[in-house]
């Protein structure tokens, strides 16, 4: 995640790009934390949702999930030249995991075949 700002910033303007990225990230994060703190301190510790009592902080977490989901969906619009698609990455990860799993169980193959042969009447 931390590589993307470096890749998006042209070399000759890198400093100002990175400064703006860092400043905007910090300000949004900080303001959100202060606002969330103020809102939850104004609420009672437990609130009723339907018939169920839940902690106010649990509601905040659910709201945070909604915002994170929106951010991840928006990330699909972020462009990086020369990068592969997310599907390619996930497919490669799956293939790597399968190859490693097969390699891990391969030494067990021969003893299993012997056991099967012995068990055969």
């Amino acid at each position, binding site marked *: 995640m931390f590589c993307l700002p470096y890749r998006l910033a042209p070399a000759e303007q890198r400093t100002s790009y990175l*400064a703006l990225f860092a400043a*905007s990230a910090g300000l949004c994060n900080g303001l959100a934390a202060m606002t969330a*703190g103020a809102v939850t301190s104004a609420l009672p510790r437990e609130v009723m949702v339907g018939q169920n009592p839940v902690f106010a902080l649990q509601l905040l977490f659910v709201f945070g999930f909604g915002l*994170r989901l929106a951010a991840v969906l928006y990330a699909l619009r*972020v462009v990086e030249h020369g990068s592969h698609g997310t599907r390619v990455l996930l497919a*490669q990860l799956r293939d790597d995991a399968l190859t490693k799993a097969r390699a891990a169980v391969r030494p067990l193959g021969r003893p299993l075949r012997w056991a099967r042969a012995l068990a055969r009447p």
Partner: protein
Amino acid sequence: MRQGLCDGLSNEVITAVTTGAALSAWAVYLASGTLLVGAVTAFPLLAQGLQVPAAQWVDRWGRRRVAIIGFLVRGLAYLPLVFLPWVGVSLPAQRVTLICSALVSSIAGVLANTAWAAWMGEALPRRVRGRFYGVRYSLAMLGSGVATLCAGLTLDLSKQTIGLGPALSGVALAICVAGCVTTWSLLRQPEVRGAPAKAAAYSWSALIAPLYNPAARRYLVFQALFNAAIGTSGGFVAIHFALNLGLGYRVIAAQTLLGMFCRVATSAFWGRMVDRFGARPVLIASGVGICILPLIQASATPAASWPIWLEAVISGTA
């Protein structure tokens, strides 16, 4: 370079014992809840807005001098908290003292880190730079983990023995000592010979240039959304665990430590993935993992708190 590793270790101790379990303990001790946690969590992030003028100030006053004074102030800003439980001041006055200490420490931290990065950028030979930062990061994580666990154990033990106040006073003293160790370590490192490279002069047009670049603008919107989402719930996890789930500070510290361990264990893997596929797919894949964390945090209850361990593994891995 050994001194550079030492200051990285001591500096990370300050970060570790001013967030998470220790911050929740301060909130409990001062009977203040989420408003104080939100403010103290927000200061280091809001202070990032000072990065732009900080580069100019560092250039004017000298990198080594700003780094040394900045790290000293960052640690010693917590000195009033050492005496807080012993002097009879009202709770609101104690809360204001904590907020002022955190604010001063955050501003000094941004200045010091900007100066340190510029100083080390020229002091370190290019061929060892990657290895130095790698070893420094690992040591910093180790120091942070040990400090988090020690703070959690101290605070938990103190509840049954001496009380939370004296323990928090001890934690504040540890922050001051860590600040002094960082300063001592930096004082032993020489200034780079030759004229320092001048920081780029920031103009308003240069600063808003990314807004005219469509790819950068999209990334800025994403970053604003993502950081607002992280800030909304991320800083309140420890206080939810302590106050609502009734977990001990050592459990919170151990959970933080597990997340840290997973982060160190998987960082090289994600680095390889970025090199192979680009940063965007990795951003989306890890974003999906980070996205579900608040739901796992919300699903933990006082009767079944096991999701916190799943949350630590996913937050460290994603």
